[in-house]
């Protein structure tokens, strides 16, 4: 019963930062995903899975196992290139999905490998797509990403860096687009994440269980309501879900045309410099996230205030360059400085 219904995103109580981070990414996927840090039982997985209900549709090449985007002919898989040259590709509209990467995945299953059945029955090699193919154009979700085996993390990094999954395995040489929004959750008590992987996540948010009693009650009430009768429960949230979905679609249209001004760029670099964050990915992510925030508000262009508002999500996990420099933001001092700094722009 429950399988056919996902808990609605707008029915989640609290966890504002996590929800904002996910929505901003949906508006502007180039932000590069979200890492959610927190203890067990803080609605991390529920929220990520709930996001599926808000995702926009994609136009893809019909029948493509790598989910190639329709129209993006410079970066499609070899089969789609073949379809194009023989002149028969067809378009198809599919919903964007949340694709899960289980911790027990093997290299073959993640990267893709030789199709064994095909080889034995025909004596010919054929590529069998893996999770990185399924994730193309979708959300790649890794629960407990800090427990993922090192060599699987390497494959993710490789694909994330290039937007392409190159496979050189078992006599198969193949490449297909693999651009995904990476969403990971982790419980920090169980170990750190490699800095390289950390840097790949556009945003990071910390979550904690609801403390306030009234809200805790509400969490339980809603959860029970959903378990008893998911259909009625979801109907109750249909309006708020569709309203948010419309806002996201609208924002996606705005953000495409957005040209952030020099003050926004200066704000991004200035804040990074002040906090001692190196690397350009942070600056770029700040600008993009600020754009998404403005677009979600229905504004045509972002302001330095947008940058300040999202800076914590972008920078907190990038503040240590090696595992031995402590991270952490001095909230008050930062806010004071930020106000002064924004006035100079």
């Amino acid at each position: 019963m429950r399988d056919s219904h996902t808990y609605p995103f707008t029915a989640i109580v609290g966890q504002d930062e996590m929800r904002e981070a996910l929505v901003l990414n949906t508006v502007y996927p180039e932000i590069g995903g979200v890492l959610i840090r927190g203890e067990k039982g803080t609605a991390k997985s529920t929220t990520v899975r709930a996001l599926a209900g808000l995702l926009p549709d994609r136009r893809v090449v019909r029948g493509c196992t790598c989910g190639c985007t329709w129209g993006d002919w410079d970066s499609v898989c070899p089969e789609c290139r073949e379809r194009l040259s023989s002149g028969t590709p067809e378009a198809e509209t599919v919903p964007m999905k949340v694709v899960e990467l289980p911790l027990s995945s093997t290299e073959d299953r993640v990267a893709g490998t030789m199709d064994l059945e095909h080889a034995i029955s025909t004596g010919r090699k054929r590529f069998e797509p893996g999770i990185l193919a399924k994730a193309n154009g979708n959300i790649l979700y890794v629960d407990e990403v800090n427990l993922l085996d090192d060599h699987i993390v390497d494959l993710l990094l490789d694909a994330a860096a290039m937007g392409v999954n190159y496979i050189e395995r078992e006599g198969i040489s193949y490449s297909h687009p693999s651009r995904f929004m990476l969403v990971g959750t982790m419980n920090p008590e169980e170990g750190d994440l490699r800095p390289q992987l950390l840097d790949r996540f556009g945003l990071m948010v910390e979550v904690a269980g609801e403390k306030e009693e009234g809200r805790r009650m509400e969490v339980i009430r809603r959860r029970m309501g959903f378990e008893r009768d998911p259909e009625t429960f979801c109907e109750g949230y249909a309006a708020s879900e569709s309203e948010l979905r419309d806002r996201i679609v609208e924002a996606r249209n705005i953000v495409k045309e957005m040209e952030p001004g020099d003050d926004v760029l200066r704000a991004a670099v200035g804040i990074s410099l002040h906090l001692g964050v190196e690397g350009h990915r942070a600056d770029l992510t700040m600008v993009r996230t600020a754009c998404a925030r403005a677009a979600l508000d229905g504004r045509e262009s972002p302001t330095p205030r947008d940058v300040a508002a999202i800076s914590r999500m972008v920078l907190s996990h990038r503040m240590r360059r090696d595992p031995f420099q402590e991270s952490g933001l001095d909230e008050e001092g930062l806010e004071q400085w930020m106000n002064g700094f924004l006035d100079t722009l």
Partner: protein
Amino acid sequence: MDERIPGHPVTPYPLTAVVGNRDAVDAVSCVLCNRNIRTVLLIGPPGSGKTVVARAAGSVSGDRRIVEVPLNVTAEQAFGTIDLEEAVSSGRRRVSDSLMRRADGNILIADNANLLPKSILHGILDAVLTGWVMAELDGTSVSEYCDTVLIATMDPSEAELSRHELDRFDICVRMEPIDGMEGRLEVLRRSLVHSHDPAGFRSLYEDSEEELRQRISAADPLSVRLPEWAVPAIQGACSAMGADGHRGDISVAETAVTLAALRGLGETDLQCVRDAIRLCLPHRSRHEDADEDVPDIILDVPETILGEPGQTTVAAPPVSTSGPSTEGSGTWSPSMAAPPVPDAQDVVFEIGRTFTVRDFLPEERGLSRDRDSGRRGLMLSRSAEGRCIGYEIPRGRPKDIALGATIRIAAPKQVHRDRGDLAIAIDGDDIREKIRVRRKGAKMLFVVDGSGSMDAERRMVAVKGTILSILEEAYRRRDMVGLVVFKGDEAEEVLPMTRSVLTAYGILKELPIGGRTPLTSGLRLGHDILRRYCVKREEPVMIVMTDGWGNVNVDPRIRPQEELAATCRVILESPIRPVVIDTEPRGSKFRKAPKLAEMLGAECLLLEEMSADSLSRTVESTLADMETKPRYTR
């Protein structure tokens, strides 16, 4: 309908649009220009632009294409194996198309080369440097000519390359992210435009790209003269920087003439030699801080040899690393020169300098040697987890079948087999099983003496520095670490076993010391913690850091020495691998730690011996600093 999907644009970033990083651009130009320079390594933290520069090579390389070495590459695919389709249809063994074959005449890009399996990285380096691909796989011999170059990148915080591996790169550039407001703004502006409209962005740089492309194809390094003074200058630089072997000299010479050719010079000038030394030597240096030493050497060498006025005629430049170290001063604050603090009071000391730790972990006793690949931190996995590095004939019932290999073994036999409806029929003899490795991730527990006796010697600074150095290494290898401190009346588990090295660091920093020395309690607690990890042939390590002067016993009815001996015996008989680090200064007459080590059946190391640096100057200079400092402060 929105067509955009996450990720990075496929259109490469133009090389001439890279902000700053002259050396990296020079390095890429050199490898594209001179066939005798074949390998380039770009080292840098995430976001320093190394991957962008490596890929941008494809933008100025003319006809030569980029061939990617993905991290998922398997050996048979990299170097070639039996061609499956040919074998099935004709029974002939032909070498299949391989990554290296496609690299012939093109450019190999290995992003994060330090994460590639060692056997593959070595195979690729061999092939690139010798021009021949040699391999024996699936009963097939591969021996093919291959003319290619390699541009590799690495983030050193993830995994190190050995000195030998580094030496095989002709050129190595350390890249740092651009700093400062204006520089970063420029990088940001360009990346925004590039990601928004890659084609439009490229067209802005079409002229400069074409100019560089022309310059690279027109440059003829073979026609550039290397002047008389350059050879001794290069050799002087090599020996001053401790770059052994001849690869260093040759690389510098080749790079110098190539830079001159690219700059339109007929003869190599001083600047080209200096630039070449900076590109080719630091990664070959024996000295730890070679990067910082370069400027001195390149200033000194050519000028002394050119005999410029005012210069001495001594050809050998000063070796700046042998001088007194001033860096250790950061670990010292004058207030600590005060007389030893009273015993009862706990004092927190700073953390001393860190260094590369020598390989000190005791060998495992259980794992049979022939099955071990010899790589530290990796172990053969008996479950179906871990990275597959090859395959073998199964011992007993096959569990983790290497399907690809099995099919390839069966393929040439098909013409003689009754196959029914199938194209390939597989016999029991064909079946191969995967060999997998997992990162071993040792379990390490520090059992640290936090008593007043260490305070008196003010050696806690160095002790903390040593622990931190081991922690840094542990982080790289994803080890689990824990920390037990014994002081006062008892031992305390201040850090339960964790993979979070950051937590360990925080605790280490705040670690107070003072009081008596309950050594036996420390060892017992350490044993109790590690006993839980003595499963599945694991042999956790206990690193005991003490001067060995235990003076508190657990049970007052038993003599302290007997109690200690009994505890040591229990540890000796367990799978725990103990190692003792003696915190007494070198030259101290009253040592007890060696006796403790003997009882534990462990090796006893001096704090001074922990550094991997053959000169061992790091710890020693930290210590020397501490001892000499009071004389300079009033």
